């Protein structure tokens, strides 16, 4: 297993961000879902060795990153991380920035390093922008530069915090294709607010709420939890976990008592996710 977390806690001052999180990940893509403030970013930072857990056991790639600088460095040699917010030095070009990170990742031989930078630029579709200053790229392109730096060196553990933010549908499709290739040999853990990305990409999904794991299983299993709890009604239904008017003019009703006259609907991952969060889902930002 590449990621093994056992009873992991993490607090910031008086706020408990993670509570007794247990998580084991092998190769493949795992999606992390949860509302804002659920602890997703904290969990990703722990897995990315950006911060240390307060309590519990963390083993990454078979090593304990808290067991000293040498072990931590060994883990980091096989790690790629895209933080939620990543800034860039204003004077650096796309190629220059990636080359700098490649050096930090110990690509010391110049020719091999440059070849690797060109490889990840191709992978994220930025080969044409390699000589441009990052400051002049669009938001989506900058996000892909961030992804490219995480992909340097084919890491065995790839941690991506909202990688699809700012990407248009075509770019998201490209990202899915890229990650599906990477996931053959690596562990990919990504967080996103886009349930369709998780449905399209991840074989496994973890739902986090209030710092606790609410669900850990396959996407199919999560969707199955919503079977029989989603309907299409002709009018708004009080008491539902979530209801909204669809483009057809009918109301989609998720959870709550069976509305009279409503017909059952095929649940989606989003329906199951909203049901998993329960009544608190109604207060989620749109």
């Amino acid at each position: 297993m590449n990621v093994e977390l056992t009873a992991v806690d993490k607090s910031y001052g008086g706020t408990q961000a993670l509570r007794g999180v247990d998580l084991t990940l092998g190769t493949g893509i795992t999606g992390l879902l949860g509302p804002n403030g659920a602890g997703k970013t904290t969990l990703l930072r722990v897995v990315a060795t950006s911060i240390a857990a307060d309590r519990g056991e963390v083993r990454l790639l078979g090593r304990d990153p808290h067991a000293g600088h040498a072990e931590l460095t060994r883990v980091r040699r096989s790690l790629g991380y895209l933080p939620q917010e990543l800034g860039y030095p204003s004077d650096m070009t796309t190629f220059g920035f990636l080359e700098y990170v490649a050096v930090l990742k110990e690509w010391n031989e110049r020719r091999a390093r440059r070849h690797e930078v060109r490889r990840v630029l191709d992978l994220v579709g930025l080969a044409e922008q390699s000589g441009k200053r990052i400051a002049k790229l669009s938001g989506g392109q900058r996000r892909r530069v961030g992804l490219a730096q995480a992909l340097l060196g084919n890491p065995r553990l790839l941690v991506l915090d909202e990688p699809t933010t700012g990407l248009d549908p075509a770019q998201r499709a490209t990202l899915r294709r890229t990650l599906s290739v990477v996931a053959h040999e690596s562990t990919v853990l990504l967080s996103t607010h886009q349930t369709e990305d998780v449905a399209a990409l991840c074989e496994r999904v973890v739902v986090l709420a209030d710092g606790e794991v609410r669900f850990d299983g396959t996407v199919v299993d999560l969707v199955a939890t919503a079977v029989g709890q989603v309907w299409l009604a002709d009018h708004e239904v009080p008491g539902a976990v979530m209801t909204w008017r669809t483009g057809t003019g009918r109301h989609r009703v998720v959870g709550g008592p069976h509305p009279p006259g409503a017909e059952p609907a095929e649940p989606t991952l989003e329906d199951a996710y909203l049901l998993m969060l329960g009544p608190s889902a109604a207060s989620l930002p749109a």
Partner: protein
Amino acid sequence: MYSTLPARSSASLTSMVAIEARRFARHPLFLLGVVIALALEAWVFFADGVTVSEDTTHAIDMLSHPIIPAFFIGLTSLVVAARLTRSTEVSAEAMGTAPGTEAQRTLAVAGACLVPFVAGVAWLAELFILLQIRGVHPYELWFGTMNDLHVWSILVALGPVACLGGAVLGVLVGRWLRFPGAPAVAVVVVAIGTMVGSLPYSYTDQGHLRVWVPWAMWHTGTMSDGEAWEGVPGYAQAVLTGNPATYLLYALALCALAVAGAVWHDRTARTARLRLVCWGLVALVVALYLTTAFTGIEEMIVSRPIPPLEG
């Protein structure tokens, strides 16, 4: 308890220094400073000569000239180095999870400070090329009238090494001072500190006290108004007390201490070895300061008057 890592950091560091050196050399502020310094040197050189006959003009005040690169290359390099040091902080969360450490990133920018040092050497080369066009006045305190080691020490310490020192100080500022405009504040403090700390002592019995400042004066320049000033006769110039040779070493030791102080910012780098290096450098700096202040030139060396030579 833990096995040691394979030694990959030195190769990484060399590659990082190369990248940072390219960034330094291309920085517009640094380039502007270099251009101004080289152009100003040529202008001052020809503007300050002493004409002794219709076709003969001699250069004077050569030991005062290093203030040109120190100011225009050294101080701009302080700002540039601070900015380079801080620039990667915006990506710190991603870079922080790579095997390369903050200490390595700091050392890389410190290594890139050789770029302003080389610019300072280029200024020195320009000075010697200009001297092929116009010779030095025979009474000038210069090679032949002063100990060659002292002359070289003053030129190198106050020129190229001052350029290096400004840049290295920038790395220190970039690591430790987080408020906006910190590099500009550091420039003002260095400039005011040099003037306030140095000038009141320069011509007194306590002249040795001046050498602690960031850029210590060694040469008075020619008193061209003909009036005696602070014991230096009109049309004469003076070299101040102290040991220029150890001052050069003192300046280099200060640079090394600044680098160590910047590396110390990285908590993971605070090993017993680095602590030992820091304390060793502090001891070296104190020893070299004392040597500089209390050995070498014991009394001001005053030149013969430098008016136009009698035909």
